[in-house]
């Protein structure tokens, strides 16, 4: 008997409508509410320049969070993305620096090669995490927590713990250039989002991701190779962490050993605020994009108004808890 979860009368009916509304449009409503409020109190907020700023500032977290969405949809988690971004960034910059500090003979190499190397580093890290998760059945939380530490250690070892300066203009172009007035990092985010949205909604692999997260046993008995799906989502997350690391290095103009510390938390926050369930199978990258935008707008708005950054942390925390409460409320409905 499932009587415990049946609603109690009309009051609950109203709440159910609210929950349903929040599930569909909550994130968008929250985003626009925040934008309206900020545009009322700051003359700068709605300027084109500032909107570009917000988008550019969101691009790196957005890319990480999209990768994270794939992992969380399969009931996993990837805590290593910040460290993997740093590792990919430092390795990529070592191929794109004019200084001899990194000790890569023949550097600088063409930017495309440096980018390829950075992406490979990200993919390899994701592959190792995914391989251990699927092959040895270690919980993803543990595996990627280990990878968080390992990748940071490798970053520090690489190039002897020094940042890598003096990157070639071609490499920095990724972080600084504009295409038709739109900064390249924003375009990168747009492309990553579009591809991820298409993959999740329109391809076989997308279906397999949702099924794996929704019910791995049902997916298995329907002929889906669940291990393969899991491995692939960690590869995607790792690869996108690599990409984010390259963007970060190109934007700050150097490969930093301390880059990306605790970025995984903002990425997870964006996914959760965006309505993807930590229990898997529910959600998607559209929510994640808005989740990342909300975090970006909040950071920007508070900087714009010169507010103590601690308020932003509190607000972000409230949003995360609120989003998960919403998810639980919805789960209660489903049973």
């Amino acid at each position, binding site marked *: 008997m499932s009587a415990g979860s049946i609603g109690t009368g009309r009051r609950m009916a109203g709440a159910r409508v609210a929950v349903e509304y929040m599930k569909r449009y909550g994130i968008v409503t929250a985003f626009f509410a925040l934008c309206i409020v900020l545009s009322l109190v700051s003359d700068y907020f709605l300027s084109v320049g500032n909107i570009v700023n917000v988008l550019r500032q969101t691009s790196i977290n957005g890319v990480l969070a999209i990768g994270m969405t794939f992992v969380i949809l399969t009931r996993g988690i990837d805590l290593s993305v910040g460290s993997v971004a740093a590792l990919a960034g430092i390795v990529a910059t070592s191929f794109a620096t004019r200084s001899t500090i990194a000790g890569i003979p023949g550097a600088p190499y063409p930017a495309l090669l440096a980018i390829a190397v950075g992406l490979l580093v990200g993919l390899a890290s994701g592959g190792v995490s995914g391989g251990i998760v699927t092959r040895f059945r270690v919980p993803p939380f543990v595996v990627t927590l280990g990878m968080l530490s390992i990748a940071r250690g490798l970053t520090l070892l690489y190039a002897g713990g020094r*940042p890598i300066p003096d990157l070639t203009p071609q490499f920095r172009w990724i972080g600084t250039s504009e295409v038709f007035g739109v900064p390249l990092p924003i375009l990168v985010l747009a492309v990553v989002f579009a591809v991820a949205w298409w993959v999740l909604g329109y391809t076989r692999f997308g279906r397999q991701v949702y099924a794996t997260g929704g019910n791995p046993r049902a997916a298995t008995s329907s002929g889906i190779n669940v291990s393969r799906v899991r491995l692939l989502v960690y590869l995607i997350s790792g690869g996108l962490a690599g990409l984010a690391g390259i963007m970060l290095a190109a*934007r*700050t103009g*150097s490969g*930093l050993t*301390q880059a990306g510390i605790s970025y995984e938390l903002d990425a997870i926050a964006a996914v959760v605020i965006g309505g993807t369930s930590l229990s898997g199978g529910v959600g998607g990258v559209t929510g994640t994009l808005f989740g990342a935008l909300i975090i970006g707008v909040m950071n920007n708005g*508070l*900087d714009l108004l010169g507010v103590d950054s601690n308020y932003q942390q509190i*607000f972000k925390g409230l949003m995360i808890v609120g989003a998960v409460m919403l998810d639980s409320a919805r789960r209660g409905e489903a049973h």
Partner: protein
Amino acid sequence: MSFRKACLAGTAALLATIGAAHADPAKKLKIGVDLYGLKAEFMQLWAASVKQSPEVKSGNVEVTVFDGRYDSLVQQNQFDTMISQKYDAIIFAPIDADAAAAAVEAAHKAGIPVIGTNTRANSPLLTSYVGSDDTRSGYLEAKAVLDKIGCKGNVVIIEGPIGISAQIQRREGNLKALKECPTVKVLAMKTANWSRAEAQTLMDDWLTRYPGRINGIIGQNDEMALGAIEAIKSANLKVTSFAIAGIDGITDALLAVKAGEMTSILQDANAQAQGSMDVAVRQVDGASFKPQSDIWQQYPQMKWDDGTAKNYNVPWTPVTPQNVDELLARRQKGI
């Protein structure tokens, strides 16, 4: 309460707290201060001092302090915000010298002068630098330790976060002093990430591993030197039988100097803050501007030079039993 209501309520609460910041849109100079992070006492002192500048107190300058949260990317984003808000000048203490170059470049392009302070950005576009030479402080503190142990014996070095500018330069200074005492052996050299707690753990381990062999402890900041002192105390050893030094001159360190437990090299946050404010206002107001802070009298060896010099070297003050009481008295005034 619905999630949306919660969001709005949160936003409203936020606005209430920031209303004051935007009360007066009169024609003031807008100067942004971007500090690498506000967690430690030194930067807190720095931020307090800049708000005590004569220009700010007289109401001619509106100053906004940004918390860089120890992340190059965050600082870069804050630069974007300041540029789009058309700040008149920026005072900049970057977390990373190389990564800072990109931010300085962006401000320069927008015609905003950037005055470096505390940590130097590796960029020729920096308008001016008002700070203290970290290589020098690294040298001074190591020298103090070596003098006390008579240029013989063994030392350990507790480093800052590997890869950031202050750590790199202070290590350079440490090693320069050590070269002058070739028989002194460095038993170990490891990071404690500026943290008192991490340094204490590190020192616990070293005391176990090198029993009776450590003569000197070089901490690259005061926090870590103080952590080492705690470790020595909890191992029931005599603090005075070690030569210990740190950098910054934070309050606890001054007290420890007074107790005869360590040496500290005071970095004058007040002089850096008010000096850089004078130089920044000079850049905007032109040649008619006269410096207003009394720090120029306090350090006659630091010449005003019409406010256009590339480099203002704020001298380090070794804290001694002779001057410690006076320094502590000044600290009482909050600067």
